[in-house]
């Protein structure tokens, strides 16, 4: 399997939340414990329109959660770099939550353990996109391979609402926009 990256285009996201529900539906999660979240940005400062950004685990190349886990319940799959969680090994110590700079690990209070996005590897192995990507109406959320990443010049590591942490090397990129806040449209008011 190839190494993959999430790609997100803030100018296309319509904030419909379909990606969250698709993840919950596909992975049979409880509705209040989603692995993916959608944030409204910036915090309504009066000068800019609201942007939305959809984030989950970024399947870092050097994942802090894996390093922090004392039970080897988190691991990076050698074949594709996907960071997966093995519930049977999880101690519920939550060290991974403290280590993750993106707050991507979810606490499952009913099971007293954590949970996280596994990039729908079962779908990837069938040749399908992850559920969140497949459902995205506006194609704001995409997935590309490492080879495709290397051939593209329109991608950047950071955007409003997302800081690149070079120490963990998150596998997410953003479409470069001159000014994503104006959505490329005329506006009054």
């Amino acid at each position, binding site marked *: 399997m190839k190494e993959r990256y999430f790609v997100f285009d803030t*100018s*296309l996201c*319509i*904030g*419909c*939340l*379909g990606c*969250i*529900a*698709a993840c*919950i*539906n596909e992975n*049979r999660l*409880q*509705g*209040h414990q*989603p692995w993916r979240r959608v944030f*409204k940005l910036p*915090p*309504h*400062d*009066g*000068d*800019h*329109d*609201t942007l939305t950004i959809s984030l989950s685990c970024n399947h870092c190349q050097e994942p802090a959660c894996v390093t922090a886990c004392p039970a080897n319940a988190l691991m990076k799959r050698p074949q594709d770099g996907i960071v997966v969680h093995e519930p049977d090994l999880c101690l519920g110590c939550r060290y991974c939550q403290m280590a993750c700079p993106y707050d991507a690990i979810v606490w499952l209070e009913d099971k007293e353990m954590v949970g996280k996005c596994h990039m729908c590897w079962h779908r990837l192995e069938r040749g399908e996109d992850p559920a969140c990507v497949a*459902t995205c*109406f*506006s*194609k704001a959320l995409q997935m590309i391979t490492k080879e495709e990443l290397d051939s593209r010049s329109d991608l950047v590591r950071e955007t409003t609402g997302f800081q690149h942490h070079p120490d963990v090397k998150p596998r997410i990129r953003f479409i470069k926009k001159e000014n994503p806040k104006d*959505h*490329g*449209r*005329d*506006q*009054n*008011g």
Partner: protein
Amino acid sequence: MEMGDIKYTTCPYNCWPINCGQQVERLADGHIAIRGNPHHDFSRGRLCVKGQSSYEIALSKNRLKVPLQRNRKSGTLKEISWPDALDQMAEKITCNIDNGRREATALYHSHGNIVQRINWKILTPRFANMAGITLWDGNFPCWYDVGVAQQLTGYWGLHDPAENCAKTRALINWAQDPCASQANMAPYVLDIRERGGQVITIDPRVTQTAAISTKHIRPRLGTDVWLANSVAHILIREGFYDSDYMAQYTYGFPDYKKHIDTFTPARAAEVCQISLAEIESLAETFVQEKPLCINLTRGALGKHLNGIQMVRAVLCLIPLSGNVGIQGGGAVWGETVEWNLELCALKEKPPAPYPVNNFTAIDEALEKGSVNTLLVVGGNPLSQWPNLPRLRRQLQKLDLVAVYDLFMNHTAKEAADIILPATCWLEELGLRTSNRRIYLMDKIIDPPGQCREASAWMNDLAQRLGIDDYFPWTSKEECLDQCLQSDACSQATVAKLRKLPQGIEANIPPVPYADHTFDSPSRKFEFFSSRAREWGLSPLPTFEPPLEGRIDTPELAQEFPLQLISSRRNTHFHSFHNSHREIETLRALEPEPLLYMHPKDALARGIQDGDYGIMFNQRGRARIKIEITTEVPVAHVSLNDCWPQLNEVTAAYAPCPPQVTADLGIGGQPAYQNVLVEIRKEGR
């Protein structure tokens, strides 16, 4: 259903213009796996946040599963048998009939019943007509005044939204936010943009659709007649119309032309509080971009006092700009596929002074006591009808309120004497039309507990009323096959539909009005409507100031200075499933009502993001959390229409006269958008 079998149905939400396709699989552990139907012509395997979460409806532990009866003195609920519940209902209906007041029993069926199209269009009206009771339809709060405008002009034919988006040069979302109300429109909207076409959104708010549009025009709320008529003014002044077409295929154009002369762009810019350049640019789009299509999918404009005239004003731009009868032109809205409506048994309905399905008539009937019994089928008046303090008082006076629903909704909880457990969309065989196609909604699982489908208990109730031929069919399949015997549906049978997850195309013209014969008395497009004048409405699309408006009612605005906008987000469909709180995924995403407020208004009131406030006016009040955002204009606030808090302050005023509804069968939508409120921070 066998484990591992895949069956097909449609999504149980009534989004317009499309109901997306679903494929359903029952897994060995009892879970119901729902995915998008890849064969569906429009949704193509995609489901939105609601459709993805819909399995929770069927599996919810909070479903109503047994009939309940309330002790009025103590307020407590106890289990009752179906026969006992139906006996009580039959006794009350019979008593009204024996007293010569058959109209005093009213059946209100709404979107929960619309999920199953045959229940909505045929089997429920059939029961009400054969029993001889009042029938009110949940379309009146939703979109009915848009329908009046359609009928007054004679333009209500159906364009295929996908085809239209594929062929249009410009799509105007006029007071429509499809990315919130029908997210499956988003790929089609974006495709127009990617092809170099224009996507224009006209809305005072920065909506989700506005955010991906090429142009966003933000007129002052309720001034759409001025905007549309000023565009018409420019097209006429500059001669950008076909005078031969106007003479041959339209009615009243000379009167319209004279009328439009007064709607100057300069004055319109003042009224709408936008720039003259924006109006001129919009007019230029109508001239330069052909075909051009206007998305008027449903309700928003109809929720204004001036709503009928707004929609008429916008519709007039279609023939004026030469966009009739061409693919990619015209207007996009919901389905107009009809079933075999002879089965509604309207001719069998005994004569009586039934209050018509118009909110003015409904409010009067409840206020004067001419209705004493209310049967609510898949509806939630104590969330979705206006002026809830007034309605609460009216419902308390009734002799009997019975509610049939999936969940303990606001009306069941607060006002019902009898509560009946309903089936969901996977638990009965049904049909759906979506866009231009007919789909089977297969029965996939058995209903839990004592949940029964509407036509089954209506049949039992009909028999108690001495009606033996309400359900004369030997099976639901036979019933549906007969419902399909209409001009539009004649190609379809249940057996055929079961083999075709892509549905069957209805027999309706691919492009409406290609022959330029319209659905009006004159068979022409009616710029001037004689019928409107007879009903006391303006015969031409005219601006009428709202009863409550920041500028138009300045004295009231001094006390209540914020204009309240009723809005829509992806997480809800009206108040379905107890304002989506029974669906854990949706509840987690929007756990409580949010009032959207501009930073300047928040600053003036000492309110910070996340504070709770009290929204109030002369009718009522509600506690509500506040989100500060520039998505709403200054001096406006906005609240999603799923929450009953909205209707604590709305007015029970419907501008469309009941006589229009009596004659046309539609009209009477409350003016939900004409509301002034004030907000104060909680604790002050």
